[in-house]
């Protein structure tokens, strides 16, 4: 996990400019900032890989692909009787 402290440099309609201690400038959607944050505020951003979610998304992805194959990639049109 990466955790970093950032200063809010500028806060505009849709984008905020955040700065790290070593002067990385990050454009960050204002919408992802917590309420009450202003120019001059300090925020902490924690970034973590979500392996659980990745697995879940892979599962859904695979399921979708299988479904598409089933729908359009089999030679015979799917007959409902076969489902029993």
């Amino acid at each position: 996990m990466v955790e970093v402290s950032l200063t809010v440099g500028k806060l505009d309609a849709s984008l905020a400019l955040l700065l790290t201690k070593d002067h990385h400038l990050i454009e960050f959607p204002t919408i992802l900032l917590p309420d009450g944050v202003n120019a001059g505020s300090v925020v902490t951003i924690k970034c973590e890989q979500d392996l659980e979610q990745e697995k879940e998304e892979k599962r859904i992805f695979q399921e979708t692909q299988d479904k598409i194959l089933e729908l359009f990639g089999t030679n015979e049109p799917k007959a409902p009787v076969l489902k029993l």
Partner: protein
Amino acid sequence: MITSQRSIPEVKEDTPGSCLDERAAKIRTFQELGPPDLVSLTKVLPGGKTPELGTFLYYTGLDNSSSSAVAAHLNQIANTISQEPQAWFGKYKHFKVTKAIYASYDAFSQVDVVVTCHLPGAVSTYVIDGRGEHVQETDRIWLGVFASSVMRSLVTTDDEEEQVNAIVESRALDPFSSPDLAKLFLHAFEELFYEGPNIGCAPEVQTASLVQNYLVDALLKTVELTGLYDEALEILERLRTKEESVVALIVKVLLLKDEEVKAVKALYDGIQKTPRDPELLLIESQFLIKKGKLTLALKSAIDAVNSAPSEFNYWANLSKVYLELGDIEQSLFTLNSCPMAAFKEKYHLKRLLLAPADKVHLPLPNDVTLEDVVALDTNMVAQEHRSIDQALANLPAAKLKTTLAKAYNILTEIVHRTGWEALLKYRARIFVMEEEYRSKSTSQTNIAENGNVNADDGFKQKRLCERWLDNLFMILYDDLKTYTMWQAELIHFQAQRTVYEKLPIEWEYLGMCAFRLHHYKEASVAFQNALETRFAPVCTRNLLKYYLLEAQGLQKQALHSGANGSADQASVESAHQIERKLDNLDNLILELIVKLTAWNHRWYSEFAPYLVKALGTVVEREGLVKVENEISAGYAEETGVAAMMNDYFQFFKLFNRPGADS
């Protein structure tokens, strides 16, 4: 058509042969596929009093697979000019062509291949690079120059843009005058496959890849025109063993071949191996849209965007899926996220050398005499143009290119569903406009930098509307205003039972405006109105597009009623009706194709892929024999139309296309 003196435009040179020096000096500046091929002729008047005369013209589609093929064509040109006196700037001159030189650019090796024919005499060839130095002639270069030539022919002769007449001193031939040439191009594709990305790609593609470049575009067009599906698939399967991303091309060819089940299987297989291949996900999404499976299509569209978030095409597709799903807000959001290719231009053929009006010889071919097409007077059109409201003539939407044009097309689809008022409301709800953004942010600067102000939440939820999209809204407003005023006037005149009169050029602009706004029916009426007065290439081309769409719709309907299986009276009736309508449409389509072919022919162009494709659909439905008969019955022999169309018919026969396969 047979090459005649009247099918060869020429430009006089001040110094004979200087065109080749100028071309050689510019080789290092050639970009992407380079300029069209150049033919330089040296002509003398027997008697020897007058000095040699140099002329040149451009070519696309000339068979340059070998120096002998080139020499054969150069000989033919030379003989055509030499065999009888040539009408030449108001006089008849009996020239002898003593030398003919052909130069063609190999974009792969970035060299020019130059073939010289002395008449009579020997044929010689040399290859020259960007530093003006001679380079060893190799098989690879011959393959490269052939492939480049085919690509220039296929990539630029599109129906999307006003390409005809871009360079009038130019001939366009069919690059696939024999199946061997088409097969040779497939072979060249395989050989040059890994160099494809170096040659360039469509401007909406940010980074050329092995499956996204002009070489691939040319391959797919070749396959679509010639039907050489299996030959292409064999090559692609071989390439796939080394480069998995090729599976996207396999799927595309299978879909062209109408092998849906196989295509879906290949797609599945490819995605299993490379789940984040954005091109496969895009194809999947587009396939699912066609099948009406919108929720599934959305999933693939999102996955494609997430896999390649800096490419335009995937975002544009996502925006379309949201639109199909009726989610206007997300459609606009994602449209706004499309990365624009602001500075890239589509590859097009450019003049390499000046062609001053008083040095250009542009004969009028007299072997095809379709009265109204030939009679079109460009001066009169120019005058018509000057006489009309310039706001109509300069609607900014007509000038949009590449990604902006595509984004605009999505925006017009959106407004077609929502209407203008509702669209404005959506816009106000979800976007902060640049102005608003600025004024907000300047007024807040001092306060915000004191740290006293909290951005209000409503403002925070919105996104900044990109400047280009903001601009498209304004452009859309102009189109809508034009369209609405026209329709209102029309109703007014109808109510007054007066005839609503416009000049053909006005109908053309109104028609194009309606077409952009997806009011196809209204557009077609405008085009027909224009064509009642005189021939107009743009109207004809777009009317053809409309008829082809109509025919496609009817065919789908027919398929549906046929698949129904029930043979009751009503459905037989309706199937009969559809068939009658299709027959009628096919006749109209045929008529437009004849006109456009005659127009192209007048400007020395014998090859237009979009016309081959259009004619192909008619041939497939009606059968070639019937179409041939209709042409001979419909046009007197002396018009030359049958002879002209015969080139296309030959193409279908050569490649054994559906309807021509006996």
